[in-house]
């Protein structure tokens, strides 16, 4: 009997409400005190096409999804046949025989036909309630108490009135009873509540980044919706009044970034979030923030391009874009979280970096993390300190203040509109220390060098990279962003197979964080793992450190890495 350790998947047509039973399953597991990792794969349509919701459950934190399922709930005509081969031996498949044409051939798994549509029509009078029948059936198979599911149905449908609630309760009960009567305890998996539940919450990466931004004192958000970054806008909008934040759904990404730069200039911590296409439109204003030295944070949630690409899928193809976007040269920071927890902390840190170094900071993530959910413990926040850098208090402004004054670390003292004695002209033209424009050779060279000096200062102050896992490994996986989760699990899988592997996850990409050279120089066999075609981080490392990593595991299919894919990739290098 396998208890509390399983990979569940529900598949159905977009627009037919597969989210509701998926969320119910996740919530029931959460209430049982389990840890989850949830990812969804869906087409860029509102209705139709097969969507899947992959939910991994464990008694300890889960870092990644995988594509081998213990239990599949198929509520359409496609999931059962499409994913039949991906079910593990002794796993189960719940499906509606009325929706399936042809036979399902697997002798080594449990097939659980449940007439979900018929039951739903009979009990609720609506075929779509088959999803609720299905989730009831799954709970029955997993030997769960039915009461928590009933409570959840009440909560979920209460707004729609008593009749809807009762019908759905009937539907869930019917599904539950059907499998109990017909399949008993045939299925070797159980979900049982833990005794110690602990304080946990459940968020996707967009929500985690939003919470980090709120903690950092972000007061201004402007965004134009773009999948998969819209979650930042939605989450910010939801909490705008709770935390006194100006959240603005604006006319386009040009407005989004220009407003955010304006707000940053005027002294509030500001954020614009987007995906690659929107980021492309923001390019010019990112250079403006660099030139006038206004703090601003941009969240760029990657999806595969080029152009419209694969709007609802994941990828890591924008690293070079965010590093180099906008004409000319100016300081900026590019950082990328590996996990949901890091998404919170790095979002917080982005705002400190933006104000300390008075430059645009780009927090780059990807759909896999941003729209994927995970369970987190209540995060520690006592140690987080808001650092506003060289922003002066009015009392600190000296006579003859120069906004762009030269300084040893390249960072000048800053005033904001309204402060007595701090008035100056900020301009996107090249300028003197005072801010007044100039084209004179010596002046230009001096201010340009001072501005760029900030990059050195930033690099010096970034935390050094860390090698994770065992020392003296045969293979070192080098990756960035949310590839961390699957890679971390992959090195454990490899170790279990007797292959010594460890992990270098690079969190600060521009400037490249210190310590990467030292680690790579001692690695026996580094392997770069990236969600793009051209191995962009590989190129950055080669360019910056002169170290060319020979082996690459790349995926540009728009799907996230799985631990299997990475560990098999490493294994294939051994041949």
């Amino acid at each position, binding site marked *: 009997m396998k208890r509390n350790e399983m990979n569940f998947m529900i598949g159905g047509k977009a627009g037919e409400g597969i989210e509701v039973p998926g969320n119910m399953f996740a919530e029931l597991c959460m209430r049982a005190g389990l840890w989850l990792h949830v990812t969804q794969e869906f087409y860029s349509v509102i209705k139709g096409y097969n969507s899947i919701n992959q939910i991994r459950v464990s008694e300890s934190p889960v870092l990644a999804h995988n594509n081998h399922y213990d239990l599949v709930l198929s509520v359409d005509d496609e999931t059962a046949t499409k994913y039949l081969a991906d079910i593990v031996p002794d796993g189960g498949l719940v499906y509606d025989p009325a929706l399936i044409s042809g036979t399902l051939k697997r002798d080594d798994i449990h097939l659980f036909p449940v007439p979900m549509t018929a039951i739903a029509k009979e009990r609720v009078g609506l075929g779509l309630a088959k999803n609720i029948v299905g989730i009831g059936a799954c709970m029955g198979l997993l030997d769960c108490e039915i009461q928590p599911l009933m409570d959840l149905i009440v909560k979920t449908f209460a707004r729609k009135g008593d009749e809807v609630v009762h019908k759905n309760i009937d539907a869930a009960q019917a599904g539950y009873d059907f499998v109990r009567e017909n399949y008993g305890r045939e299925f070797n998996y159980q979900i049982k509540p833990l005794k110690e539940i602990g*304080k946990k919450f459940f*968020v996707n990466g967009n929500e985690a980044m939003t919470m980090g931004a709120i903690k950092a004192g972000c007061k201004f958000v402007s965004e134009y919706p773009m999948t998969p970054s819209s979650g930042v806008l939605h989450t910010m909008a939801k909490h705008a009044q709770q935390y006194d934040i100006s959240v603005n759904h604006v*006319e386009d990404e040009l407005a989004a970034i220009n407003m955010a730069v*304006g707000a*940053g200039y005027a002294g509030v911590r500001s954020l614009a979030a987007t995906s690659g296409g929107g980021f492309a439109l923001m390019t010019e204003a990112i250079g403006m923030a660099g030139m006038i030295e206004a703090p601003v944070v941009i969240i760029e949630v990657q999806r595969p391009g080029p152009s419209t690409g694969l709007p609802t899928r994941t990828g890591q193809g924008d690293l070079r874009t965010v590093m180099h976007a906008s004409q000319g040269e100016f300081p900026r920071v590019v950082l990328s979280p590996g996990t949901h927890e890091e998404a919170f902390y790095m979002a917080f840190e982005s705002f400190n970096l933006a104000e300390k170094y008075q430059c645009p900071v780009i927090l780059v993530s990807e759909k896999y993390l941003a729209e994927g959910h995970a369970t987190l413990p209540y995060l520690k926040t006592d140690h987080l300190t808001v650092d506003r850098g060289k922003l002066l208090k009015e009392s600190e402004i000296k006579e003859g203040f120069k906004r762009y004054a030269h300084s040893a670390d390249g960072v000048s003292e800053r005033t904001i*509109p*309204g402060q007595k004695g701090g008035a100056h*002209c900020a301009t996107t033209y090249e300028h003197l220390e005072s801010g*007044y424009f100039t084209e004179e050779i010596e002046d230009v060279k001096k201010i340009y060098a001072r501005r760029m000096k900030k990059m050195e200062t930033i690099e010096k102050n970034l935390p050094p990279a860390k090698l994770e896992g065992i020392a003296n490994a045969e293979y070192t996986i080098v990756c960035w962003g949310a590839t961390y989760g699957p890679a971390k699990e992959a090195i454990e899988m490899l170790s279990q197979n007797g292959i010594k592997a460890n992990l270098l996850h690079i969190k600060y990409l521009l400037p490249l964080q210190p310590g990467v050279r030292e680690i790579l120089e001692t690695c026996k066999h580094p392997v770069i793992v990236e969600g793009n075609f051209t191995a962009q981080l590989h190129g950055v490392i080669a360019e910056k450190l002169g170290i060319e990593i020979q082996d690459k595991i790349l995926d540009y299919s728009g799907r996230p890495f799985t631990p299997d894919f990475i560990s098999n990739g490493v294994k294939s290098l051994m041949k």
Partner: protein
Amino acid sequence: MPRTSKDYTSSAGKPNWCPGCGDFGIEAAMKQAFAQLDLDPDKVMLITGIGCGANMPSWFSTYGLITLHGRAVAVATGAHLANHELPVFVEGGDGDGYGIGMGHFIHGMRRNVNLTYIVGDNTVYGLTRGQCSPTADKGSKSVSTPFGNPDPPVNPIALALANHCSFVARGFAGNLPHLVNLIKEASLHKGFSLIDVLQPCVTFDKTRGYKFYQDLTYDLQSTDHDMSSLEQAFKRAYEPPTKFPIGIFYQEERSIYEDDLPQFKKGALVHHDISNIDVIPLFQQYSF
């Protein structure tokens, strides 16, 4: 001591516009208006785009920000919402506002952001050497349209009237007292105030000099024009090229962007304490 234009003048340098440029008139009118409004230079944001006139903040002693071509309204919107207690003046040219920045112009009016937008309208792109702008007449010849501009002009006044602009006015850079007064009225108006300023480009458009506008302009406020009537305002908006009414076409009181938002009730966002924001309630909201 009452404030004067000098209080708003930077000691860093002098304007580098062509002699006789209409921008001098706009600069003088702005400084006089600021003085008459008794604005504290440290409490004013002057935000511009890119172009001859948009270099304006260089020669002001207020907080100034020269942004990007076409983006001044957007930047100013963000700056205003960050600190809605400070007056914001946005300035730029017709290419800046009605060409590349058209989107922000329209949405800024819809939003009724509380700022004053002064557009120097001279029908040409001066800084890039005289190409015709979106307000140039059909058939206008310029370096970019040697056989005549194929497109009819944008009508900024009608456009503003059609897009909920709550203060729509036109001035003339050659009529200083009138323009000073308009800038004051616009600044006192709560909401998005547009002042389209007819302005000769003495270098690149010899056809529309000071005399041209002096002969064709007349003051709306010396007629029976009812500035609360959208219908009358539209009629006046379509008078060019035979006549150029100047003054206030239309003014209405309506709520501004932040009026209905409780976030702004506790003072400017920039003054909110961000040193220790508690996000535990958020963790709780995302718990089960």
